[in-house]
């Protein structure tokens, strides 16, 4: 085990996979000379050279499509798209091609491609640069969408993504890059399609992914202190395939759930989770499933407006308390509640 940042875990894993497999190579804007917009690929151009660390022109559709084509011939490209917002320019290649080739040609060609890209908001980047649109990819059969929230998962899930034979959208997050955690030294790929129960509890299930899984863990800890609550936390980790079993099993035990997400509420990832709970644990529910998500507006630049539009820790706590109030469960420490 070593303690390292999410950024370091990604960097080290990309490096070790490139040493392991000569077919693995990197492509993207500013990943070489500039060390990557968020410095994930720092130093890798020097180490591996221009053949394997390829700075591209600003041409998301072109280079993402080229990576898909290279993958069809058995290479294992790892593409960096600077932020998920710019993946919109490559949407056609990803959705109409990467996700379709295996099926449309009757299984004759595989696309072992990884597209790494960070989501995130809250940095005053305005309407076009603050979107969390992983849903667009999670919606598409044929895509796999992974969203690690810890440095350990960043490593094990990147290993899995690179070694997988299908196109993977690998969602990172701007505000997770500097977070630290323990990372195993061994190279053990995660199993794609599995969520994780990151905290056991019995009062309510709190569900998130990427940054929101991190927030969920924090909130659970905080409410254990302040409200004596025993919260179960689920980190979805994989948005497609989705581990419905883990979600339903947890809710059967806790009888209540709050989903927190960084995307928009209507039709968002949380809507699919809520539908899953409705289908699989309806008889066990004591309260409506709550979702906490972004306000449904083009994100304003101005700080107070942006802050109001983003889900906060307080919003999550409020939703948990309201949900537990609705089922009439005690949640305050002795003596605090009249």
């Amino acid at each position: 085990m070593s303690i390292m940042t999410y950024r370091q875990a990604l960097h080290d894993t990309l490096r070790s996979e490139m040493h392991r497999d000569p077919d693995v190579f990197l492509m993207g804007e500013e990943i070489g000379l500039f060390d990557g917009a968020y410095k994930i690929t720092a130093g890798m151009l020097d180490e591996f050279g221009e053949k394997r660390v390829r700075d591209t022109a600003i041409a998301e559709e072109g280079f993402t499509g080229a990576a898909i084509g290279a993958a069809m011939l058995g290479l294992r490209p790892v593409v960096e798209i600077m932020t998920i917002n710019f993946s919109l320019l490559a949407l056609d290649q990803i959705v109409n091609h990467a996700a379709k080739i295996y099926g449309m040609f009757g299984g004759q060609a595989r696309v072992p491609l990884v597209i790494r890209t960070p989501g995130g908001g809250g940095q005053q980047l305005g309407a076009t640069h603050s979107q969390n649109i992983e849903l667009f990819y999670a919606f598409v059969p044929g895509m796999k969408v992974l969203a690690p929230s810890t440095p350990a998962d960043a490593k094990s899930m990147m290993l899995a993504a690179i070694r997988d034979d299908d196109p993977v959208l690998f969602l990172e997050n701007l505000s997770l890059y500097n977070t630290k955690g323990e990372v195993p030294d061994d190279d053990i790929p995660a199993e794609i399609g599995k969520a994780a129960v990151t905290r056991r509890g019995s009062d309510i299930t709190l569900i998130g992914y990427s940054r929101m899984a991190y927030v969920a863990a924090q909130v659970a800890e905080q409410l254990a202190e302040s409200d004596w609550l025993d919260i179960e936390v689920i980190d979805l980790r994989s948005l497609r395939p989705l581990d419905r079993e883990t979600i339903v099993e947890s809710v059967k035990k806790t009888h209540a759930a709050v989903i927190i997400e960084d995307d928009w509420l209507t039709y968002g990832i949380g809507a699919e989770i809520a539908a899953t709970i409705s289908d699989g644990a309806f008889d066990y529910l004591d309260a409506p499933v709550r979702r906490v998500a972004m306000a449904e507006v083009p994100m304003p630049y101005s700080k107070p407006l942006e802050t109001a539009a983003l889900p906060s820790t307080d919003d999550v706590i409020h939703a948990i308390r309201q949900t537990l109030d609705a089922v009439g469960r005690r949640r305050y420490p002795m003596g605090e509640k009249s």
Partner: protein
Amino acid sequence: MSTGQRTTVAPPKPGAHQTNTLAVAAEHLASTDTAAEKRSTDFYRQMVFIRRFEERAARAYTQALIGGYCHLNLGEEAAVVGLMAALRPTDYLFTNYREHGYALTRGIDPNRVMAELFGRSDGVSKGWGGSMHMFDLEKRMLGGYGIVGGQIPLATGAALAIDYRGVDEIVMCTMGDGTTNIGAFHESLNIAALWDLPIVYVVINNRLGMATTVDKSSAEPELYKRASSYRMAAERVDGLDPVAVFEAAQRAAATARSGKPFLLEVMTERLRGHSVVDPGKYRGAEEIALTQERDPLVTFAAHLVDTGLLTEHEITAINDDAVSRATAAAVFAEASPFPDVSTLFDYTYATPVANDSHRLPGQPLFEPAPFPEQEATR
């Protein structure tokens, strides 16, 4: 250096709105010496103001008064003022995210430009856009855009609307060198050429897209030549000389007014990093020194002094004036109120619509019913 295909440079038609702006003055009085002299000193005054404004913005950024991404026009001042002088008030402008200088030179109140950077309600985009998204309908600046190349199809469509209505206006669409590699650039130029649209595409070639040089990103590094794929007239001009830029932009605008698109490449410098947070370490000391030598403010000031158009004393006075206006803009911006949080849902749709979500992040879809008191001890 014009590629020349189909270049029919018609004399500019008289503007419909002959206001007393620099642009119109320049267009009609260019033949007289005194007008040319005044134009040069005006150019210099505008360039110095952009420089001091941008430096003030950079300082405000380090004071956390400005957030997000902030890209400056430092080194591109001559290009900006020369281009803007060739436009009439009735023409339209589309730019990218590096657009503070364009907004200022187009005549938007500097206080409102700075207020936008500060995210305040007096900002040109009411604090909703920030550094990358300045918009002013009255000045016909139809936006800075943060997505690389996003403005190019939009500008092409604006030119389509002008052509459709048959009015005597044109569109100018600026972009960076790196942006000529995005598909939308090629799709748009092709459309504009096929449909004879009144638009001037301008490539501000500062030789870098973030850290990537033109040679590394463009298979045809002489970017104006890309127009030849669409049989579009094109020209390359020295962007350190505002007068040369102005004259080239006038030729380009005249072509557009005659109903043909034009591609103008302006060779400039980027004096600092890609944005205010980029230290630009990827550039060697030698290259940085060369860049500083090619600072248009320095070279043009030297030219003005050499030719006797300005004295050192006047240059100092121009600088002092620019500093005080930039400072005043920052004072204004800081005093301007933030937009009220109650306005968060005001701009999702242009007209009210049933069932639009006005929900804040913590709010439930349906208010939960209170749990009956007597059962609260379950």
